[in-house]
């Protein structure tokens, strides 16, 4: 699972929909790989507004990346984001992937297992 996806995904348990603790899900025992993905500056610029930066900081720290800026880099008309910033984001969001491990909900503690990069989000019916 890409770090970008982990910034999008929430707990699927019905009772967690309204809880602020159900996002982001927390990585445990994560094994990481770096896999090259074609760099596309326009894509990064396009999704940046929809990244939850505080959640990204939490996730990154859980995976051992602690040097993210405290504030989301915000491009302006006069100062668009530099190539290096975009490449760093690209590397973290798209090229860093969790292949094995767990995602755990901070509200209901439900564990979503990740195996071969695929997270299992199937729930027993009573939790849906």
């Amino acid at each position, binding site marked *: 699972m890409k770090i*970008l996806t982990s*910034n999008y995904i929430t707990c699927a348990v019905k009772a967690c929909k309204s809880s602020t603790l159900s996002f982001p899900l927390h990585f445990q025992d994560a094994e990481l790989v770096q896999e090259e993905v074609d760099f596309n500056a*326009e894509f990064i610029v*396009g999704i940046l507004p929809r990244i939850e930066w505080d959640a990204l900081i939490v996730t990154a720290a859980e995976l051992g990346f602690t040097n993210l800026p405290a504030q989301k880099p915000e491009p302006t008309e006069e100062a668009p984001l530099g190539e290096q910033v975009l490449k760093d984001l690209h590397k973290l969001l798209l090229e860093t992937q969790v292949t094995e491990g767990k995602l755990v909900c901070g509200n209901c503690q439900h564990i979503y297992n990740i195996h*071969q990069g*695929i997270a299992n*989000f199937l729930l027993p*019916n009573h939790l849906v």
Partner: protein
Amino acid sequence: MSRPEDTLPPDLFYNDTESYKYTTSSRIKSIQSSMTQRALQLLALTSPSMVLDIGCGSGLSGEHLSSSGHIWVGMDISASMLAIALDRDTDGDLLLADMGQGVPFRPGTFDAAISISALQWLCNADSSEVSATGRLSRFFDGLYSSLKRGGKAVLQFYPKNDVQRTMITSAAVKAGFGAGLLEDDPETKNKKLYLVLTVGAGRGEVVGGAVAGRDVTDVVKGMEGVDVIDERRKGKNGKGKEIKGSKSWILRKKEQGRNKGRAVKGDSKYTGRKRRPVF
């Protein structure tokens, strides 16, 4: 030919053997490929986007998202299909998930969504605890929420009959989507149905489906065979309110009068038209 949806639940139907057969069939590859291209054309994305592929299977649909420069997340209920997607080195991020249980993403995240040949599976409830309608509404509510405002979804599906077709489209409209149906090669055995959905202004900001209907008209404007699903046009038989004084209202009142034996003027092309002020 019997429909697989009527024989087994999807995760059992798409076992290792069936998933392999499906993915290696050159006939299926070419059909899935052309339908995905059509869906992409209808989405008309102008920049590299974050796309959700619902019922992504072994990645036959998703690979066209990749080659168009998009990043995608795929969800599928069949572990065997996803295993083949891994073998084929699919670029998409994969989730083992049941769309009938919802779409587990933060609100407003995806730019767009596609689904190719998967939705009809939702019409068969696969456990006695949950109804098909319940699963459909959980799916469309979740999809609606996970798309960004102005986001679009194109869902190609194979309804078994008109009942299923209506079940699916009305669940989409109920979730708040502006919806249109596009039929390619109608009246042939190759006919393909695409549900085109748009997320308009936030729910609650607009009363009823007023804006929704217009949105989708823009999306599919000029495309032949598009049928905009607009609850308001249903008149007195639908859920929408008929407007007093409108042409349909006048025609209905006149019909009622005639049925009661009253003398009523005949209908003409002027019936219910706005009159110019006379000076």
